[in-house]
């Protein structure tokens, strides 16, 4: 596979791309070339759209019970090839093997929930709305949908969307991350084996040209996007102008608040996982630690002690606890933020730039756990998304000040509180403007039956991915009023 230009999967076949431009897919642990992503042309993307459009009517008229059987088969294929698939994700993304395993578990959960479509897609009805007249609501599929997937969860995020889309009777195009495409390529090899009708599910690689073609096509219905808020807002506007349904999950700056009555021993592992899991490249990652009162010093010391013990290295090494950043650009971005933190006057008490990973990994994109003390809310590291393993700590006077800091931030993806007091927790969940709230939970990741929520600049649209929200996004509601003479 090394250096190979990846193929698109269109109309049930793997097809070589005619693209002239490619993007290198790099193993971030050692800088080695894995493959090349073609920047598919508009013409190629239109072929995929055409294939999906052609496949729609037959697929839409296939009974739901038959449609979901393909998903059961695919779920089985993922379980049987679990470890190989997880290794591919670690190879191209860098996350440790346990993180890839965890990601695949979440992927499979979404597929399993989508097999509930025969229940989830039910409408409702009522007799005699007027004399001899009945009324019902049915939820119908609409056509061709697509997703623009991110690099940080290359297996799981597409599964927030496509299983529900095809289970409800739509057809689909996945535009995987051009940085981490191998994960979806591997999944599609298995999708190809399970024998879905041609055109029901397609994969096209690419960049801006591919995405614009998908949005501008009169034959696509809607887009699901996960990525930066900056790009998300642009695409959201474009989709609005093109009359598309759209859901945009954007960036985040997630505040974790620790109250004086928090259980330090149970809190610290959660904080470590939240800030450093996936090397901080998670839209649910802790972004800022707000610590209230006298717990500040002991908590800070405990976090420092734990973070110093984290072993950083190649994610395929079972003894490693944190992998590299997923790209050189990502690493440089984090390094810039560390510099800014120092320049703006924060106290760097653990410097991840000094991490030792050995000579074999000297070309990798490694930054170790990094901790800033004496951070203030106006600093860049306190306001902006870093997307790396950095823990900025702010000492806060009281609960209300914490809420004020959190709600002032333009992002609203997640927020967590650590406390032993139910009233405080209830107040937090009530007042904080973030979509995914954790109470003594560091990573507030909704399971597949719940929507992956988000607010403010972290989400644009009306319906989120996963669960019933996904079913509503991929169907139109039709009301039928009946009378028989």
């Amino acid at each position, binding site marked *: 596979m090394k250096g190979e230009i990846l193929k698109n999967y269109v109309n049930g076949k793997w097809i070589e791309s005619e693209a002239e431009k490619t993007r290198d897919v790099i193993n971030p642990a050692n800088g080695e070339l894995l493959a090349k992503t073609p920047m598919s042309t508009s013409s190629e993307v239109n072929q995929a759209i055409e294939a999906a459009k052609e496949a729609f009517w037959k697929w839409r008229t296939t009974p739901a019970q038959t449609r979901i059987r393909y998903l059961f088969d695919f779920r089985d294929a993922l*379980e049987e090839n*679990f*470890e190989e698939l997880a290794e591919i994700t670690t190879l191209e993304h860098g996350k*440790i*093997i*346990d*993180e890839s*395993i*965890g990601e*695949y*578990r*979440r992927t499979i959960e979404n597929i399993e929930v989508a097999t509930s479509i025969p229940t989830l897609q039910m409408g409702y009805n009522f007799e005699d709305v007027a004399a001899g007249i009945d009324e019902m609501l049915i939820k119908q599929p609409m056509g061709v949908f697509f997703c623009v997937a991110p690099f940080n969860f290359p297996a799981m995020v597409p599964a927030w969307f496509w299983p529900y889309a095809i289970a409800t009777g739509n057809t689909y195009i996945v535009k995987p991350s051009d940085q981490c495409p191998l994960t979806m390529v591997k999944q599609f090899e298995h999708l190809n084996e399970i024998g879905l009708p041609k055109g029901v599910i397609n994969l096209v690689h690419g960049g801006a040209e591919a995405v614009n073609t998908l949005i501008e096509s009169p034959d696509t219905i809607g887009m699901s996007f996960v990525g930066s808020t900056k790009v998300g807002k642009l695409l959201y506007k474009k989709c609005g102008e093109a009359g598309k349904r759209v859901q945009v999950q954007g960036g985040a700056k997630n505040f974790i608040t620790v109250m004086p009555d928090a259980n330090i021993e149970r809190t*610290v*592992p959660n904080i*470590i*996982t939240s800030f*450093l*899991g996936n090397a901080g490249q998670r839209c649910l990652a802790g972004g800022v630690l707000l610590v209230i009162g006298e717990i500040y010093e002991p908590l800070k010391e405990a976090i420092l002690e*734990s973070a110093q*013990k*984290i*072993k950083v290295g190649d994610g395929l090494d*079972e*003894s490693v*606890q*944190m992998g590299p950043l997923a790209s050189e650009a990502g690493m440089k971005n984090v390094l810039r933020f560390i510099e800014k933190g120092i320049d703006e006057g924060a106290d760097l008490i653990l410097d991840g730039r000094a991490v030792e990973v050995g000579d074999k990994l000297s070309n990798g994109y490694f930054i170790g756990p990094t901790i800033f003390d004496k951070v203030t809310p106006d600093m860049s590291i306190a306001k902006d998304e870093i997307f790396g393993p950095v823990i900025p700590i702010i000492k806060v006077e009281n609960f209300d000040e914490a809420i004020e800091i959190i709600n002032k931030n333009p992002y609203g993806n997640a927020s967590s509180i650590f406390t032993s007091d139910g009233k405080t927790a209830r107040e937090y969940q009530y007042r904080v403007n973030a979509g995914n709230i954790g109470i003594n939970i560091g*990573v507030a990741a909704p399971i597949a039956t719940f929507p992956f929520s988000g607010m403010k600049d972290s989400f644009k649209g009306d319906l989120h991915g996963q669960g019933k929200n996904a079913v509503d996004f991929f169907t139109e509601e039709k009301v039928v009023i009946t009378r028989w003479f």
Partner: protein
Amino acid sequence: MELGTLGSILKYAQELENTLITYSKGVISNSKEPKTCAIFQDLIKKHEKILKRLKRVRHENTTEMILEPIKDFNSNNYSLEELDQQVYSEENILQTMKNIETIIRDFYLIAAEKVSFIAEVSSILEGLAEKHQENMEMF
């Protein structure tokens, strides 16, 4: 190797089970006693099931990715490398199996404590320790 993560613990558990299976296959190949072969055939089946279970446990329980280091747990203390696994005389088989089962049982007991933060995994490991205790008593 330091076993600092849930994954590395479960992976090492699989290695131990594989060693036991490999030795059992060696016993069958070298033995002329049908009874001995039957015992070890059963043992292989049982431990192949355990292997599958361990893989599944890892796949199903890594949704909460715990980075907090698991401390003071080294695979060197539960190594099967030095056991005389190549000699298949009846005396040696018995002694080797007792040693193997003891080491693996002890590994699971300690592993269960180390991963007590995931209750389900902890009880599965305790259960596996019991299975190896039963094997040891049989030998």
